[in-house]
């Protein structure tokens, strides 16, 4: 039997929901899945309150969660297959671009020659390389921790791309407020959607490169989950911040497919 150990921030919630949903019906999934979520709030706290203290909260939790998965894996039978999947970093596109009060900004991606928002209305333009270097510095400790985990567990480990952002800022606010019963007029207003997508793209690019460097396979966003520009399709939406069950199901399917061909036998 295949056993998935899925570790990450709050963005693995959609995979958890998809697995629970699938487990309600017959035939039940032919694999097991255990989820170790670290909580995106803690990550946002790291980023914004503790001034980027190198994933002060996230990394110890990441190590603990993977080690727990490793322990659990030793209890299963020699014929079983195991796959550890890590999904971290979905918070950056929201946290970096959430609150205008934190500094509204924009930047150009290499292919662009203009920005969507009116530059005069912006607080500032920043160099793209600044955003890239900042995200790289932010992910460094997480990647180092992942490399250590990989070396210590010797179990197949895969990195799952965080879900891409929503296009509509209004939808984000509406969904967030509906879930939490908050007056939407009292909510902070996210920055322009194009900035959100650009931050996500740079983060995705960095994560892909880093995983390639440490030889961890990278599972990208399922093609049916995004529109032509790369935003999450409305039917994939969750609570405003996160993707929903439909997105989780697409990722789980891809994950299982990968694991069934790549995942190691525990005692092989």
């Amino acid at each position, binding site marked *: 039997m295949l056993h998935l150990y899925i570790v990450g921030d709050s963005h693995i919630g959609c995979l958890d929901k998809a697995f629970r949903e699938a487990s309600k019906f017959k035939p039940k999934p032919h694999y097991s899945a255990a989820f170790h979520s670290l909580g995106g709030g803690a990550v946002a706290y790291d980023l914004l309150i503790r001034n980027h203290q190198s994933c002060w909260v996230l990394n110890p939790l990441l190590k603990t969660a993977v080690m727990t998965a490793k322990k659990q894996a030793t209890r299963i039978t020699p014929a079983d297959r195991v796959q550890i999947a890590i999904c971290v970093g979905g918070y950056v596109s929201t946290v970096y671009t959430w609150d205008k009060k934190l500094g509204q900004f924009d930047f*150009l991606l290499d292919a662009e*020659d203009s920005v969507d928002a009116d530059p005069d209305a912006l607080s500032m333009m920043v*160099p793209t390389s*600044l955003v890239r270097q900042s995200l790289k510095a*932010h992910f460094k400790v997480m990647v180092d921790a992942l490399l250590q985990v990989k070396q210590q567990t010797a179990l197949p480990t895969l990195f799952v791309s965080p879900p891409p952002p929503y296009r509509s800022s209004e939808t984000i606010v509406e969904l967030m407020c509906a879930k939490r019963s908050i007056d939407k007029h009292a909510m902070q207003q996210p920055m322009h959607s194009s900035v959100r997508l650009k931050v996500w793209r740079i983060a995705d690019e960095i994560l892909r490169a880093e995983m390639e460097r440490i030889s961890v396979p990278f599972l990208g966003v399922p093609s049916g989950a995004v529109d032509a520009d790369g935003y999450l399709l409305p039917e994939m939406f969750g609570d405003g911040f996160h993707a929903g069950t439909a997105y989780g199901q697409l990722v789980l399917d891809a994950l299982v497919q990968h694991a069934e061909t790549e995942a190691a036998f525990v005692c092989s």
Partner: protein
Amino acid sequence: MSMTPCPYKELPDSAFWKRSVAEPLWTTVDPVLSAPFKITQTMRVATAGSCFAQHIARHLKNSGYNYYVRERAPRCIHPEVALHYNYGTFSARFGNVYTTRQLRQLIDRALNLFIPEEPFWFKDGGYVDPFRPQIQPVPFSSIREAELDRASHLKAVRHMLESMDVFVFTLGLTESWESLSDGSVFPVCPGCGAGTFDSSLYQFKNFTYEEILDDLIYVTNTIRALNPSCRFIFTVSPVPLIATADLNHVLTATTYSKAVLRVAAETAVKQTPMSVYFPSFEIVSGAHTRGRYFEQDLRGIREEGVEHVMGVFFRHFTDRQPETADAQRSQKCLSDFQFTPTSNSMDVVCDEEILDKF
């Protein structure tokens, strides 16, 4: 005919070299008599100028004063990365402003009164801003990106000019390189680290006293028109020239440069209300120090020298009590200073140091 005593008889100790320079402990020499205004912790103090201006900024920041940074990185940007891009090093990301003409043109560019013809310079597959060539560790990836960043930067400069309470400008150099097409001046010579030198496009310029004074008066008048209550502190950098292009010996070129800047600053202060000259140059390079505030290269300023300058600054321009370090400094005897490089002098961003590599 009435007989009066010698006019010098009634003068204070500060008027006499022996009593105020030669005899006091050299680390306690204080050439400031009074300050025309005080800086409070809420006042926005913006700085610009040569490398030495960064020492002033650092001490203001570390002492709880409101070192005014108008162009900050967004809060989500990793702080170490932001620092590499010089967010927070300067009040806005203008880099070193060595000459008064550079300052004048910066202000005019921020107010859209001057649009230089000089294009961005190609370097390492990207583009650098000729008016702040070392402002970030990697070039801009496209001309469009450089243009947008410059527009955002100049907007921040304008906001800084409009909203600062005190402007500290450190006059650094008289020598510069200018574009023959429109007189734009650069912080470093084109072709030295970035850009390409072409004598049909650029020429050396050693600004005269009259030109520097005119620039300073223009700068103060223009800022006052935007921000009538702004106060000015002018100081002259004690850091000698790293190189001269004036076909003089670098020592005489340095003396000329500092003398002209010193006179221009003094004259500008006399013509500008709520402005003052602050003697950084004298505190560091006066005869009382016997050169001991200079690093081994006789250019860099030791941290002890900066502390002496800032101790005098805080004593006269703020209500702050002297710090322990200030008191400790006054206890030091001559042999306390070992000629080992101090770390802080190495942390300063200096565009002109590129010249030493040729």
